[in-house]
């Protein structure tokens, strides 16, 4: 059992922290959020130049062969800095699925993605239903050698920026759940983009008789790979949440040590001290959960998926706890756009609601109690 970072991992952590320290001041970020700029081309190019975009991919695909531990390091820092760029949609989800393609497809999409030249999105959610990786209203109707896609999906992360969108669709001929790649702007594809509460963006995808060729089919039966990629996404979100929580705790400690009331620093009040201790405990327990879920998944343990559900459930529970307490302890200042606390809350709420909220992941745990994590 070893929980220490190796030399390369420590360097990665330092370089991510340094880069974000330089590019992601709270003021710059606030300005970008107001302007609706969730993707800064320069930053994305630097992601590519620093090699980070290639990090999670296998060496035979031209990647750097990073493990889930490297991903955890990166996303914890992303969460601290509240990075707006659509990494989750473009790299973790889209990149994760593009790995399924054949050599031609990888060359066409994965390579430019790793080089920062291609933006991508995956259409996963629909309003008014629980997240399901197998149910979809998108149908693929056979049409000659290819298919025609019909249906719609909501809240497709990064849809407005994406050059390509990956769409799971139920094939009417075989009943398989296949993955198709459609291009933004191709016939039959409409995207209605909008901001999200956390400053990132998403969009509604409408498919009306959209033609896709068999070369655009990434996978014939995608249920298992979708679940695997979703687990990686949940781990990345989990690491972002830890970054946000630990920043909230740190900033609250800092604020209460400096802010005086009735002649004493707020941090001197015992009732507030004990609440900050509870924030600390929640944050440390959450950190342990992230380690558990990441390492179990990385090493392929049989209870890995269960640990990921546990982690995702706690994003909502511990995340809100930390953010609510941080705002409360900041007093009225905590309610201003000027202080970071509210921005962390917004991101944590988004991380909670996306891809199944706390209740839904708790329900997954309850559904199968034969395993104990």
């Amino acid at each position, binding site marked *: 059992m070893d929980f220490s970072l190796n030399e390369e991992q420590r360097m990665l952590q330092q370089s991510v922290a340094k880069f974000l320290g330089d590019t992601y001041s709270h003021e710059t970020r606030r300005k970008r959020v107001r302007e609706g700029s969730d993707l800064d081309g320069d930053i994305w190019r630097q992601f590519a130049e620093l090699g980070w975009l290639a990090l999670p991919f296998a060496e035979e695909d031209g990647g750097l062969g990073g493990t889930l531990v490297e991903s955890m390091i990166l996303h914890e820092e992303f969460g601290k800095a509240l990075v707006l760029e659509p990494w989750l949609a473009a790299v973790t989800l889209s990149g994760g699925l593009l790995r399924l393609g054949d050599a031609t497809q990888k060359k066409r999409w994965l390579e430019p993605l790793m080089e920062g030249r291609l933006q991508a999105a995956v259409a996963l959610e629909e309003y008014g*239903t629980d997240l399901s990786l197998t149910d979809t209203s998108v149908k693929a109707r056979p049409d000659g050698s290819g298919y025609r896609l019909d249906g719609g999906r909501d*809240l497709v992360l990064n849809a407005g920026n994406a050059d390509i969108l990956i769409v799971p669709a139920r094939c009417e001929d075989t009943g398989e759940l296949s993955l198709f790649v459609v291009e933004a702007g191709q016939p039959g594809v409409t995207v209605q983009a909008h901001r999200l509460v956390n400053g990132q963006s998403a969009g509604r995808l409408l498919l009306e008789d959209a033609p896709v060729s068999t070369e655009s089919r990434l996978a014939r039966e995608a249920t298992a790979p979708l679940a695997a990629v979703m687990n990686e996404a949940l781990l990345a979100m989990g690491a972002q949440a830890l970054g946000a929580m630990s920043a909230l705790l740190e900033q609250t400690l800092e604020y209460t040590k400096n802010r*005086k009331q009735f002649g004493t620093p707020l941090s001197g009040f015992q009732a507030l001290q004990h609440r900050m201790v509870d924030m600390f405990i929640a944050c440390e327990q959450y950190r342990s959960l992230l380690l558990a879920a990441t390492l179990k998944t990385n090493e392929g343990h049989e209870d890995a998926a269960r640990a990921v559900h546990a982690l995702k459930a706690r994003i909502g529970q511990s995340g809100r706890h930390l953010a609510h307490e941080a*705002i409360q302890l900041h007093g*009225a200042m905590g309610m201003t756009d000027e202080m970071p606390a509210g921005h962390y809350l917004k991101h944590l*709420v988004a991380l909670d609601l996306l891809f199944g909220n706390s209740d839904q992941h708790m329900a997954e745990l309850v559904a199968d109690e034969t395993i104990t994590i």
Partner: protein
Amino acid sequence: MDLGIDDEVIAFREEVRSFLRENLTPEIQEAGRRTTSVFAPPGQAMEWQRILHRKGWAAPHWPEEYGGTGWSVTKRAIFAEELVRAEAPPLIPMGLMMCGPCLIGYGTPEQKAQYLPRILSGEDFWCQGYSEPGAGSDLASLKTFAESDGDDYIVNGTKIWTTYAHHANRMFALVRTRRDGKPQQGISFLLIDMDSPGITVEPIVGLDEVPEQCQVFFDNVRVPKANRVGEENDGWSVAKYLLMFERGGSEYAPALRVQLERLKKLAAERERNAQDQQARAFFRQKIADCEIEVLALEFTENRIKSELESGGNPGALTSMTKILGTELQQRIAQLTVEGLGIESLVWQPQAIVPASEEQPLAPEHSLVAMASYLNSRACSIYGGSNEIQRGIIARAVLGL
């Protein structure tokens, strides 16, 4: 001991409903639906106040001689509940709930005659100048100073968290009028014309990206001494009187009950598409838990009112309803977001400004839900933070 629900009460509810059907316009109703904090959109709220005022219903809790309705406690609760149910925007409280009562208790006959009718009618728009940077819940450390200068004061300093200062034409403020002595004893209560030279207002952007709070700067602002309410250096008594008065006035349960009913309706609609029975059970449990607390709070508030009506003093029990009411508001706001799911992540604050022309990309209630949730985090901070309220209960009720 009885609940006292009789025919008169039932008839009164019908009277209120019928008034609302006839007088609450779609535009005002829209503003009600789009109210995401304690404070409704100012234009429509003031218009609604004028309509209520014509009926004599703008300030049910005021003494009848100044324009109150003389209703029983039960009727006032019904009125409050029906307003929320009809999606009427809440009235802006600074004049009706705060400044008015202070004037009723401490104003000179001239001040009452000059200001009370304009508060009722909505001609004046008031804001409250209490907090200062570095003095939130700790009012004794105020620094804004009013220097005596003949018949006037010259005010210098700054106030913060002043709701709607950018819409107001008047402010009631606590300012320091003496530099020595105990901190609480050198404070006076002034009425300040917001058009006075030397006043600058800077809106503060909140989590919902809509400015509601402001910081107000005073640079040698001249205020006639005739605008002082109560004695010089005795502003603390005026402010405390308001707290006493508020005890009968602010009730959380009626609005919470309506919000809860809406949440239950939302949950039922959602469930038709929800595959997961377990997740559904968890969500409904949280709603049921709120329902129990709202019922209990309703009866706690009833107990307080029953105590008040029989001449008793519920004292610091109102600190308890403040804690409970605000925490429940936060829980229901959060559950509403949870119930709506990813839909509520769509962020378009400008699309829900009343009469906005921006095309909403998600249903109105989803856009409103997230802003309401974010803003709900403020209600345990403002109006004496819940930590302050716990301290009051510890001292005044439990004798700790």
